[in-house]
């Protein structure tokens, strides 16, 4: 007999229920409002009172309404047929709801129970298996969707039978496994898993070491993301968090992209709904939607489901990771999830932490980020979840709880700067404040040496140095005036402007420039380093700026051309001629080295 209860209190979506039996923390219940069932999650229990957060509007609810507890936590249902779907935060299929407006209490199944899938066995009778092991596969779009032993399966078991190749629905039995206690378990192509619990059926989780190409130069070249890595994008509103995430979702080199629209604008998700079925995946030529799952819980949808949405996304990502796929999970914005926690914690009158956020926010955030990662499966294959979340700091101030908690959890930091956005230097990632801890990993250095070129990471660090020196030179120019500094300061500054305009800045709305393959990025980086290593001869500072503006202009036109097409090559020639005009014997004359040393001394002097 399941536990039942009656509503005794309501404040917004926090409802108190007096229960007649046992209830569990995070257990799901349904409250009956005149025949409409409102789903809710237990978030606190005192005595016989369960405090639940309702995933719907509580308008019209009254004391005495009955509630029924399910005995289960918030779960997702997984199996073939999730690809290309649009779910809400609780994994309801939004396309199955026919009305223009969302109806309270309308829950739609995440999978299609009628559809038949062509099943091919992988395991065979007598095989020893454990949770997450592959039994068979079906073709889900372009993905060979593995049918796995349920993650909840404990210990090891033996396969008694596997269904022969053929057509099955997700409810049909496709295998029978005898567990350690000798019980037969019938397996279907569907499994359920509680979203707040990490799936740990993999063999082991090493540090990430493989580069994950995003096509965004300022990320790939300067602060690379790894397969299985974590990163976050904080920034004031309007600085380009969402555009950047959309760009990554379009061009990143992943098998599957899960986009969680968490408490932000509906029109931004509509953009994905509209464009992704039309846009081509540049690597495979398939439509982008074919590798995408959208979890959509926009700001006007129930607040409590916002929190659920990121967990739903993560759990589905874990499911596909266990198939040996490279999954990229994006969430915009994790701050909205934190705010949802804050709203509930306030209503429960908990002792608030900083800015009224719950005390355990840092733990919640780092727990979530730790679910990402690169893993080896027991069968020797590997899979990964790369997670990149945006953070929306109040007032644009990074010293706030969500940003600070996330900074402790994520390994790459892509800080968007208001100033860059104001001057339309998109993507507005601040090249100096941002970092990728992965550049410090020896595995990553080795990987780059082998797959890109020997000494690549040193080149990256050098480029960062150029940017830093450029900033210092500009500061000096601003303090001392254009002609109050040696001409070389202008040269140093302008060289950093090349890096800025040609690598950092990228036109996300241009067909060609929107995404740059890593090989082309390598070309650009080497070209620029070559220029930066050279000395140039100038009579006065005004010439410096004019000259480098021309250099930048040509290189920018090159960025707009297909790599090494005819026009590109003629621009390159034009560039080389222009460089030859003022370059002093190629590889860095002594003159400039000397001046730059002066600047270095000044810098160390400032610190001392």
């Amino acid at each position, binding site marked *: 007999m399941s536990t039942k209860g009656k509503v005794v*209190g309501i404040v917004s979506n926090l409802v108190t229920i007096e229960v007649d039996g046992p209830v569990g923390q995070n257990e799901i219940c349904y409250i009956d409002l005149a025949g409409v069932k409102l789903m809710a999650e237990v978030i606190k229990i005192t005595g016989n009172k369960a405090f639940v957060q309702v995933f719907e509007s509580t308008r019209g*609810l009254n004391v005495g309404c009955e509630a029924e507890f399910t005995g289960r936590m918030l779960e997702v249902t997984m199996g073939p047929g999730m690809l290309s779907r649009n779910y809400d935060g609780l994994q309801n299929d939004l396309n199955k709801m026919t009305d223009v407006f969302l109806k309270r209490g309308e829950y739609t199944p995440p999978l299609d129970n009628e559809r038949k899938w062509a099943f091919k066995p992988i395991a065979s009778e007598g095989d020893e298996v454990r949770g997450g092991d592959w039994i068979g596969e079906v073709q889900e779009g372009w993905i060979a969707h593995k049918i796995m032993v349920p993650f909840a399966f404990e210990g090891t078991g033996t396969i008694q039978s596997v269904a022969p190749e053929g057509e099955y629905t997700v409810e049909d039995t496709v295998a029978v496994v005898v567990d350690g206690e000798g019980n037969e378990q019938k397996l279907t192509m569907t499994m359920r898993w509680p979203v707040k619990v990490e799936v740990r059926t993999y063999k082991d989780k090493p540090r990430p070491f493989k580069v994950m190409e995003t096509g965004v130069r300022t990320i790939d070249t300067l602060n690379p993301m790894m397969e299985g890595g974590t990163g976050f994008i904080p920034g004031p509103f309007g600085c380009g968090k969402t555009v950047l995430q959309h760009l990554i979702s379009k061009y990143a080199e992943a098998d599957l992209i899960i986009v969680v629209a968490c408490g932000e*604008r509906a*029109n931004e998700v509509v953009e994905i709904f509209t464009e992704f079925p039309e846009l081509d995946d540049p690597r495979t030529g398939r439509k982008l939607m074919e590798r995408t799952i959208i979890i959509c819980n926009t700001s006007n949808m129930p607040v409590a489901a916002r929190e659920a949405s990121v967990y739903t996304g993560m759990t589905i990502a874990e499911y596909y990771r266990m198939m040996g796929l490279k999954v990229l999970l994006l969430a915009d914005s994790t701050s909205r999830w934190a705010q949802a926690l804050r709203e509930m914690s306030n209503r429960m009158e908990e002792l608030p932490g900083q800015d009224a956020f719950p005390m355990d926010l840092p733990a919640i955030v780092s727990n979530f980020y730790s679910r990402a990662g690169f893993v080896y499966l027991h069968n020797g294959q590997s899979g990964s979840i790369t997670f990149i979340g945006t953070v929306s700091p109040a*007032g644009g101030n990074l010293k706030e709880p969500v940003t600070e908690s996330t900074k402790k959890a994520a390994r790459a930091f892509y800080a968007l700067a208001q100033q860059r956005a104001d001057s339309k230097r998109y993507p507005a990632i601040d090249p100096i404040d941002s970092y990728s801890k992965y550049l410090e990993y020896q595995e990553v250095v080795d990987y780059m040496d082998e797959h890109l070129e020997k000494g690549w990471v040193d080149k990256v660090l050098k480029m960062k140095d150029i940017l830093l020196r450029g900033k210092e030179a500009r500061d000096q120019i601003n303090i001392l005036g*254009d002609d109050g500094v040696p001409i070389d300061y202008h040269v140093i500054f302008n060289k950093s402007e090349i890096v800025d305009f040609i690598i950092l800045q990228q036109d996300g709305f241009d067909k060609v420039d929107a995404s740059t393959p890593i090989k082309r990025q390598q070309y650009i980086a080497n070209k620029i380093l070559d220029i930066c290593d050279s000395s140039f001869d100038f009579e006065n500072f005004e010439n410096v700026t004019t000259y480098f*503006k021309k250099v930048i202009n040509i290189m920018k036109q090159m960025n707009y051309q297909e790599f090494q097409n005819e026009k590109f090559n003629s621009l390159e020639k034009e560039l080389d001629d222009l460089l030859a005009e003022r370059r002093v014997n190629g590889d860095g004359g002594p003159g400039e080295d000397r001046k730059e040393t002066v600047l270095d001394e000044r810098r160390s002097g400032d610190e001392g």
Partner: protein
Amino acid sequence: MKAKAFQKIYTRIENITKATCVVEAEGITNEEMAYVDGRPAQVVKINDKWITLQIFPGTQGVATNAEVVFTGKPPTLKVGDDLRGRFFNAYGQPIDGGPAIDGEEREIGGPSVNPVRRKQPSELIATGIAGIDLNNTLVTGQKIPFFADPDQPFNQVMADVALRAKADIIILGGMGMSNDDYLYYKSVFDNAGALDRIISFMNTTENPPVERLLVPDMCLTAAEYFATEKNYKVLALLTDMTLFADALSIVSNRMDQIPSKDSMPGSLYSDLAKIYEKAVQFPDGGSITIVAVTTLSGGDITHAIPDNTGYITEGQLFLRRDTDIGKVIVDPFRSLSRLKQLVIGKKTRDDHPQVMNACVRLFADAANAKTKLENGFDLTDYDKRCLDYAKEYSRELLAIDINVDVDKMLDTGWDLFAKYFSKEEVGIKQVFVDKYWKN
């Protein structure tokens, strides 16, 4: 308010604060409307038989034995074509002396549109103001506020935008609006012969502040009616959302909620999002566009109200006085229309995006030159040209009194480029330079 037979009446008030009271009652539903001593009120909390009511006009003079009448339903609005040309208070009652509306009664603050049923907005709204059309193009189904200090002429700009927007219906929601401004809007719409396209829900400074909380939902319920039943293009004007948020904080403070930043309730983001997300393009052609006003204090956009608003709306239009030309302009740096990408260069000329960006970039260079000048440094020739350009750009394109079409704006942009700069300095894609550069 006369009690009707089926209504529940109680007379035991336990507790009274400035905006709320607690009454012992049974069978009461969450968010239902009630009348306390004849004053409209709404259920905001239920604890067993203790019902907390938020009393919109405030509690002055309410006694513990006052009559509390529950209506059994949440706040509603009667909708119908008769709404056109009418003026109402925050409860949806006529204030223009006309008859009550006899139409379908709808709950306000209803459910959200299923995101997969929305259509992507794609219809440009031309306002003639280059600071908007050129740099921050508006699209139907968008939600966008003016960020402005109280002394800036946002009411005039908003009225201009409303009248030029070619909307089928304009719904004006006034929150803490001064009576003078209310009369201003009325006369502008009247003079333009647009009164039959206007519906207004008004809470003026003379009305109690907490009443304002109902105004946006009233407006948007009417908007949804026209946008879904008649497939109209509806434009909702909400002013001033800062005063709306202030009312939220009054209520939440009375309810002893822990305030977050700037003494605003922790739910401010969700509260505002619920309103602004009603902006939508429906698949059948109807749309709701929201243009709002969020007044700032001393231009501070980091305050919780504009900050949360900026995170919700699809951009913002930032007004400021440009002392160099002595006019109010739409600030190109802090202003943004996030939906402009959907139309610029597609519904407008192909050079639009690049011209827009180059204009702003050069304006930024001018700002740097100005800083240099203020710091007492010599200006380069380029700096000087930038400063001259900036003045003309500001006067010919950014000022709010401009009224021309987008092609003309773009032509003006190219004129300015050729007048002050070389092609390299402008740095626009070669194809456009070849096509449009003015020799």
